[in-house]
């Protein structure tokens, strides 16, 4: 639990989608972000993973992924949808969730990423987080 001492105004959130061939783990996520364990920023990415881990939902198998995502999150970019669709249909596990600027589980890091738009693509993980309010 992260402690927020102040008020967070202009509530904002970032919806994210993650697709992974091998499943989402802390190590695979950290590697996808390009962080080494002795990095200056390792704590930030640990907190980001913690936020994701606490909010992530798995997309069930056998659904129409496009309809599933469009009805749940503000995820309207057609190119992003095509990429996710391709990965889901090839058997990858797809997850989704939201990062909020209240930072309930990831503190300042979650609040920071709730205002950021990030796309990470590597061999194992596709991570797409786009802020819905900026």
């Amino acid at each position, binding site marked *: 639990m*992260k*402690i*927020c*001492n*102040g008020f*967070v105004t202009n509530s904002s959130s970032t919806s994210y989608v993650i697709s992974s061939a091998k499943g989402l783990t802390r190590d695979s996520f950290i590697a*996808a*972000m*390009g*962080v*080494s364990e002795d*990095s*200056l*920023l390792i*704590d*930030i*990415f640990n907190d980001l993973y913690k936020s994701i881990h606490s909010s992530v939902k798995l997309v069930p198998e056998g659904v129409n992924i496009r309809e599933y995502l469009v009805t749940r999150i503000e995820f309207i970019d057609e190119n992003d949808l095509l990429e996710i669709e391709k990965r889901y249909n090839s058997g990858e596990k797809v997850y989704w969730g939201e990062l909020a*600027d209240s*930072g309930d589980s990831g*503190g*300042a*890091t979650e*609040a*920071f990423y709730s*205002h*950021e738009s*990030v796309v*990470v693509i590597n061999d194992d993980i596709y991570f797409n987080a786009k802020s819905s309010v900026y």
Partner: protein
Amino acid sequence: MKIFTVNTNGYSSILYVLRPDNYERIRNKVFPSTVTGAGTENARLMTRIDNLLFNSGINLNKEYEYLYSQEYDTFESFLENEKGMGKHLLNDIVLAKKDIEELWYINISDFDGYTLSTLFDKYTWSDNDLIERINSFFEEVSNENM
């Protein structure tokens, strides 16, 4: 080299940075241009923080020297009276400042926008230790020189 921050209405978007003239060695060690996985999110964030700490801000020593040295006898009285710096912060800075360092004022929001200041804010987020972590990296690199 050391970073300080200040509580402004329960929030912090201001950094005071003691930066030596010849900071390239420290910069290259703490923010190597070839961080693991260049082009990654880690590298993107490192670059933003590096830019903030080394390419932004106002040199308060120069401001004092050129504009206020006639008005105030000392740099400390300039900071206290002209910049409204509190005695506690002023004392911390005076104790930490080395002769080769100059004091820089950085407004994170002005330079990079609201979002990056969130990452440095340890008043809203009491367990946020990014500044302490960067400072410990700076100290480690500085000590390598001794």
